């Protein structure tokens, strides 16, 4: 029986409602305090700083929209970093979604020892970021690295990877694909939540494997795909560690990710105002993308129980 709170009901039992509300606020007060102090507060501060020039040591100087004007008209590295980040996201997100799904389908079989394989595929995602990247830097070493050595056995002279402006970004993409395990686990959980009776009904009706995948599995997975898509876009846009450790912006700024650029402006050049402005623009971009995805969700995300 669905319970809907209607105002009239609440108002009639005044003091009980008030006590319940008080308990509610008390219970969430730690989280609320944290939100105000550590998220909303700094965000507002960052917005204010973005209208100033400040280098942490001298007093801040109010400059209005100067930082934003500089960003859009006089800073080619802003566009470069946006381009690098966009390309990386555009390639990585679909591959992560599709790849994670394929892996999850593979791992969803009831074979002996399948748990071992699930662990193996998930393991890279739990490795500490910096150690992971340093490991990959050695694998990608143009002279003695694993990849080029293997390629040389088949007679191919491998590119200079992180030392080549054309191959540095692909190298970082390759590196990040090792983290597919995270998406795989989420898909796996969802796959196992798809009710078996649907498949049974389909096979009675004569559906083959491909049809049952396309008509049952995929639609039932769309909520998970949606979830993964939103999260993936948000976090991929903020890639930092791999670029910072592996290439520090890369040969000829070919791996100058947006957040790396913010870091450089803020903590290497100490242009706090400009860095804050960059950060806010990133926030707005990601917000816009997320809104677009969420709006589009109505059309392709199918929740169980809906009539479609």
């Amino acid at each position: 029986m669905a319970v809907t709170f209607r105002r009239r009901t609440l108002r009639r039992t005044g003091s009980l409602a008030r006590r319940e509300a008080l308990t509610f606020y008390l219970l969430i007060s730690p989280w609320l305090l944290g939100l105000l102090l550590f998220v909303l507060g700094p965000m507002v501060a960052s917005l204010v700083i973005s209208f100033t020039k400040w280098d942490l040591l001298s007093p801040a100087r109010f400059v209005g929209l100067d930082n934003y004007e500089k960003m859009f008209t006089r800073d080619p590295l802003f566009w470069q970093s946006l381009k690098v980040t966009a390309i990386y996201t555009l390639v990585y997100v679909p591959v992560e979604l599709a790849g994670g799904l394929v892996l999850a389908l593979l791992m969803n079989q009831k074979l002996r020892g399948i748990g071992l394989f699930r662990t193996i595929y998930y393991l890279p995602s739990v490795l500490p970021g910096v150690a992971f990247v340093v490991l990959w830097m050695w694998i990608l070493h143009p002279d003695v690295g694993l990849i080029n050595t293997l390629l040389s056995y088949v007679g191919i002279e491998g590119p200079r990877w992180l030392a080549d402006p054309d191959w540095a970004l692909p190298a970082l993409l390759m590196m990040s694909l090792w983290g597919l395990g995270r998406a795989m686990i989420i898909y796996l959980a969802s796959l196992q939540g798809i009710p078996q009776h649907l498949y049974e009904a389909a096979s009675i009706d004569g559906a083959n494997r491909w049809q049952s995948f396309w008509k049952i599995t995929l639609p039932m997975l769309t909520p998970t795909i949606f979830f993964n898509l939103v999260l993936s876009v948000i976090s991929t846009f903020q890639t930092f560690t791999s670029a910072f450790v592996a290439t520090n912006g890369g040969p000829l700024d070919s791996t100058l990710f947006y957040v790396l650029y913010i870091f450089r402006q803020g903590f290497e050049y100490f242009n706090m105002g400009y860095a804050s402005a960059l950060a806010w623009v990133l926030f707005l971009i990601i917000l816009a993308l997320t809104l677009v995805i969420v709006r589009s969700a109505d059309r392709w995300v199918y929740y169980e129980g809906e009539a479609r």
Partner: protein
Amino acid sequence: MKRSASVIAILVVVALWISACGPTSTPMVIEKEVTKVVTEVVMETVRETVIVEGTPEVVEKEVTKVVVEEKVVTATPEPEEPPAEGAKTILRVGTGDSGEGLNPHQEIIARFEEANPDILVQLEAVAGRDYYTRLLTQIAAGDAPDIMQVGDDAVPMFVGRGAFLPLDDFITGDYPLDTSIYLPGVLEPGQWEGQQWLLAKDFTPLGVYYNKAIFDEYGVEYPQDGWTWEDLLEKAQALTLDTDDDGNTDIWGIQLTANWTTGFEYWIAAAGGQLISDDGTQFLGYMDSPESIEAVQFFADLYNVYQVAPPPADFNLWAGGNAEFDNGKAAMRLFGRWPQAGYKDNPNVDLGVVGVPAGEELANILFWGGFGIFSGSENPEAAWRFLKFYVGEEGSEVWKDWAIPPVASVAEEAGLTEDPIEGVWIAELDHLAPRAYVFTPYWGETADPALRKALETVLIDPEADVTEVMKTAAQEAQAALDEKLSE
């Protein structure tokens, strides 16, 4: 009953959470009354100089001379927390060193505390690239260590923004320091706008390591003092060899430093050029001068035309991927003194060191780290006493086992000046060219990216026209500098 229990639980959680997020405790500093007066005066005046328009104004201020009475606290072992009685001053020293590099610091601190029982020194080490960020936030919060270590190119940024106390009055004050005891060139990097702000901790010019084993095997004469770029090319070519005839070079002539911008200043200086005008406003005409272009051309040719240098494994300064010299696969290496200890122990390398070759001129550049006193320090005299100990003769007695000590007499007595390897580094101090950062505090944001991009371009694309590349670099650097100067 249930209601009050849950309320109590909530309050406990909130209380725990708030206490966990409270401010970190700062060490208690028990001050002698006398010191407090001086502190306030100093702090106020320094704040007024903090207006960065390129050149901070130097304001005349009075530093009240205070005679500190030394109380010898008898038989007190070093306590974990500050003692309740007995006025011990606590000094904090910040450094970016780590690991074994902290040993000399700790040794010097131990000796100082023995000689000055009224002062306790705490070492705060933050390794790696976070050191400056942490330092800046501490300075902004007014809570920086009393003594801070800062590297050469960070000097204008910190000094120019009032983070340090000028030392001239201390040097001639109650605990004077005789600055003539130092090796040449070691004081200058700590100077800015005509005053001394920092004193040397350690330093290194560039030098050329060479592997005697390779030279002996192929019958090439060792590089000698006074050698030139032509000699360098000749020896490097003689020692770039394909020993197993598989078409790949197995031994390289010289391992160079790819896109390392500050190290590249040596090539510019040796070509007789400079990257920026003396007044710090012009890159055009300097970064793209014929001398600069000549330097970049020769450097790029070593990689691309003569191919005596192994191609860079990466362009990330923090990755350090090229290891040919370490593995005994390169005859020479142009670098600073930092990896020397490792080379001495390395079985692949029979180490020799020689000064840098001369181009049009004989010139070298110095990399340098120094200590200064935080302008907001509450114990400037105690800090000065420690600083004087650290960088004076006493400290040098410890440093001489780890690096070249800044004090000339200590270096001589330890035999370093005559040593065939260490003596080379000391001798290089006689012909130092000023680093580019002394002419502008905006080097890191303007010239550095432009120069790095130029070096990467000529190294990645052998067909690139060096003149065009340097002209572009000069224009980019100039545009960035103009913008900074007009802010």
